[in-house]
């Protein structure tokens, strides 16, 4: 009798420990998300797929979806590669490396509105630092940057990469620190050069980190719209009009919450699909 009650308590224990976290997640995260999905399946107050029909029949939606995908196809791999390289660099045992690490992390601590101001000033068409610099030093004609339909999206990619890499660098650095140094010594004895070591030893050993960074970075980037909102408002010629910005405008500007919710549903499903494939892909290699 006593035994079974003790066992039951033991069985209940992990749930008790989870309870606070679970309660907060359910109330403040899952409930609003479910509400959002429910709204997406409403049209003018009643259950319907009409909102999605309206959404999918809009050319602008497909364009925004394409902009989102295009941006992420470049930005996420770029961030992963750059942050990995940065991590390799700050993993070197030289004097003062701690200060470099912290300073590389500085862009992460800058808030997006501030970062947006810095970058739009730097890349301003007229008196911007970048144009003044390339003009007076290299004689290159002023570039449009955020005002050029062919460049604006890539300027946003540059800004977000600049701001994001320090963050992911830290995770990679941790991954690199976790590698047993004896592995490298063994490789050295075998006569492997630096590139071979990197390719055959380091990269496979930080696979777990890569998976984490990939998944987390993808989810963040697909939902990223602050630079668009703050700098370009989706322009020029809709070239930076990412889907999340569309959802934001629907909900916050146009008062059509159902459409905004439906757009968000599409985004969340998109993330889930991509993350699913990322898991599949990395597991297959094993």
């Amino acid at each position, binding site marked *: 009798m006593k035994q079974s009650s003790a066992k039951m308590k033991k069985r209940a224990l992990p749930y008790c420990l989870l309870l606070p976290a679970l309660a907060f997640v359910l109330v403040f995260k899952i409930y*609003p998300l479910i509400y959002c999905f429910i709204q997406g399946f409403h049209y003018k107050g009643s259950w319907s797929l009409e909102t999605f029909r309206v959404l999918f029949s809009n050319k602008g939606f497909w364009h925004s979806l394409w902009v989102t995908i295009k941006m992420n196809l470049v930005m996420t791999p770029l961030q992963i590669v750059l942050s990995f390289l940065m991590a390799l660099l700050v993993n070197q045992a030289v004097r003062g490396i701690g*200060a470099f690490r*912290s300073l590389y992390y500085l862009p992460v601590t800058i*808030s997006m509105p501030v970062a947006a101001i810095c970058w739009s000033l730097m890349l301003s068409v007229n008196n911007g630092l970048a144009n003044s610099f390339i003009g007076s030093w290299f004689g290159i004609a002023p570039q449009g940057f955020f005002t050029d339909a062919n460049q604006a999206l890539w300027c946003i990619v540059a800004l977000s990469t600049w701001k994001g890499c320090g963050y992911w660098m830290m995770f990679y650095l941790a991954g690199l620190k976790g590698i047993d140094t004896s592995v490298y010594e063994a490789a050295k004895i075998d006569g492997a050069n630096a590139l071979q070591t990197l390719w055959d030893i380091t990269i496979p050993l930080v696979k777990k980190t890569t998976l984490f960074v990939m998944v987390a970075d993808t989810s963040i980037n697909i939902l990223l719209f602050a630079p668009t909102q703050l700098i370009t408002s989706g322009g020029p010629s809709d070239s930076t009009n990412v889907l999340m910005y569309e959802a934001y405008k629907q909900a916050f500007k146009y008062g059509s919450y159902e459409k905004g919710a439906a757009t968000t549903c599409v985004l969340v499903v998109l993330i889930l699909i991509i993350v699913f494939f990322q898991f599949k892909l990395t597991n297959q290699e094993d």
Partner: protein
Amino acid sequence: MKRFDKKRLGKAGIYLLLVIVLIISLFPIIYPLLSSFRTDNELFENMAPFNWHTIVPIEWTWENYIAIFKEYQFGSYLKNTLIMIALIIPGTIVICSLAAFAFSFYDFKMKKQLFALFLLTFMIPGEAIALPLYSLVNSMGLINTYAGLVLPALANGLVLFLFVQFFSDTPKALLESVEIDGGGWWTSFSRIVLPLSKPILITAGLMVFVNQWNDYLWPLLAARAQEVKVVTVAVANFKEQNVIHWGYIYAASTVSALIPIFIFLPFQKYFVQGITSGGVKG
């Protein structure tokens, strides 16, 4: 001798690379930093043609800093922000570490599904759920309170994930020996797991700090009253309908970028250790 030179060359190369990346990292920030020490008119007068004074002030002035603290009560917004963060950090750590403890050291039904649920929260866009969340928090009567700012931030999928990663390296045998000695979970948690967790506590704390420090939309909606308004929301006040006080924005940005950096610098060693899953071994 030759070997020594090669080594030195390698070191120089590393430093060169470090400095190049440093310049790229810092350049966009240096301009607003320097601009925070000059008046708006001087700033715009020297914008073109591009010269030394496009970036570096002619007359250095603290005017902007004095204005934001005196006229705009920037200090009280800083205080509010720090109070908010000071509540969120321990709350998040307590809640997430307990949950992570359960995930790491116990087997129970639905473990996988529950863990996935927590990870899912990482992918939920704050902007997308802002409206229903607002209705919810409003119906709880928590708008314009610290509770309204703090409660929704407590369950953090990323922090939980980091804790689980970290705990997974703690040998289970240690905990079993506690149990054999007749100690309960609290003994294991407080005597064995927590003392080993200093790096992850710092990491989690710093991550929460940076995230909350830069959070904008939720504080904007949930904390509009003067008594709870935070820095990011207050900075928008420098952008008026017909005027932007550029100098004020730069000064405020400089202050709000320096604070996390000063907090981050002394802890960066632990920060890396905290994310490193193997950090416990040492």
